């Protein structure tokens, strides 16, 4: 579980991509996301996926993106089968299934290279309500904590003779109760404690608190952002006017 989910959780990295302005990283991921929606064939989508893998390579998160792809492949197989059942068209079904992988990978690259702090600042720059930003960022920040909790709870219950891997489906679902109750209770208790801790540190005391870091885009950031937009424009033009003519 931890192994698969690590494809979505931020870890500090030293690549040039990690050091980019978070707004640029958001732009690149957003453009990749949109590109996956405008492609018209599996061939075009394959090109987009190769580009995403290249970005992951530059960001030195190739292994973790591969894990993300592995996780989403199981869902995409389901999407493929459902589409095939209703549309009876292999190409369309394959396009929808692989589009799902591409969408997840594009967002995954952003989340695993952008720290929750950077995410918070980016959201504030877009003038989103402070409470909404805080709730979202806290949720992101607590994903790994809750996963660790879940693993520790599973260990504690296994040590009390609970067999999680044995029995039929109904029994396995019932065996999840001793895992889920402490997990939910811990999450509720933790959120209450966090709220108290935030209030005791003057959260909400002023409507617009100051920020420790003010982002200023560097020359590299500007060049990368311009390049990303140009590449997106070229890709969109190619997908509609050039590539379809080369398709068999």
């Amino acid at each position, binding site marked *: 579980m931890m192994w698969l989910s690590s494809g979505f959780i931020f870890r500090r990295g030293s690549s040039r991509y990690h050091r980019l302005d978070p707004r640029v990283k958001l732009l690149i991921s957003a453009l990749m996301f949109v590109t996956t929606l405008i492609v018209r064939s599996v061939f075009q989508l394959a090109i987009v996926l190769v580009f995403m893998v290249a970005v992951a390579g530059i960001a030195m998160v190739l292994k973790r993106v591969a894990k993300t792809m592995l996780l989403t492949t199981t869902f995409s197989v389901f999407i493929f089968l459902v589409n095939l059942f209703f549309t009876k068209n292999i190409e369309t079904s394959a396009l929808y299934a692989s589009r799902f992988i591409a969408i997840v990978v594009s967002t995954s690259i952003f989340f695993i290279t952008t720290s929750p702090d950077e995410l918070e600042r980016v959201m504030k720059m877009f003038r989103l309500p402070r409470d909404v930003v805080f709730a979202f960022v806290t949720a992101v920040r607590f994903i790994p904590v809750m996963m660790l909790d879940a693993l520790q709870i599973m260990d504690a219950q*296994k040590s009390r003779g609970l067999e999680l891997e044995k029995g039929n489906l109904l029994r396995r679902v019932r065996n999840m109760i001793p895992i889920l109750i402490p997990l939910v209770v811990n999450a509720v208790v933790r959120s209450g404690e966090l709220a108290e801790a935030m209030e005791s540190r003057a959260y909400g005391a002023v409507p617009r608190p100051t920020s420790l870091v003010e982002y200023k885009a560097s020359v590299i950031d500007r060049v990368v952002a311009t390049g990303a937009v140009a590449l997106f424009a070229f890709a969109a033009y190619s997908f509609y006017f050039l590539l379809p003519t080369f398709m068999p």
Partner: protein
Amino acid sequence: MIEFREVTYVHESGVKALNNVTTKIGDGETVAIVGENGAGKTTLIRHVTGLLKPTEGEVLVDGVDTRQSSTATLSRKIGVAFQNPDHQLFSESVKEEMAFALRNFGFSPKLVEQRVSWGLKLFGLEEYSELSPLILSGGEKKRLTLACILAWDPEVVMLDEPTVGQDAIQKEKLAGTIRMLASTGKTVVVVSHDIEFLWPLQPRVIVMKSGGIVADGPAPDLMMKKEMLESSRVAEPQLVSLYRELSKRPSAPFVDALDARLWIEADQ
């Protein structure tokens, strides 16, 4: 008998949590594992019930490799009380919480009832038996987790930071329980930073640092090695510090006549 043979454990992140650990814990021994945060103490005990499998080497429980057995099976022999009680409490009542493991291990309803009332009495939890375990205080929850473990009468009892959140009286009672377990031939392993709690138990002490064992021996011997303790970031017992300070004063007549061991014996 628990045996660690050249055990190395590397986390998924690449961090080496245990580094070539070789040691044995004999039947009926009382062992304290001490060391700074991140030294590998908890990782070591998690190997015993097969919750973690060694990257290299092997862990044997009564000659059986933990890789060959499920955690549930090993837990029948080895009871582990984890650091955070909130990670295991889920039942509707304290009584049901205690009965959970007993039912998993296939105890008869009559025996379950007997063991539950014995555990509740031992840890002074009888008045809470019908209450939800989630509303207990931190110290009470901790005692409940210990009661849950002892209820199925494991051969080995492992306690991870058992004194956290306990007041002085409860610590005394806990020490008494550990002595009682030791006197009945149980193997007791205590992971703790609380040297003052461990010291009167006079356990065999395993000092860990950076995933390895840096010292292993009887408490009176190891606790006098100030440099080793300092380098492992383990606090010296106050009694030893007092002895050391008084020893510097030749005019103190009673210090010459005593050494730390005598003090310990007197303490007991």
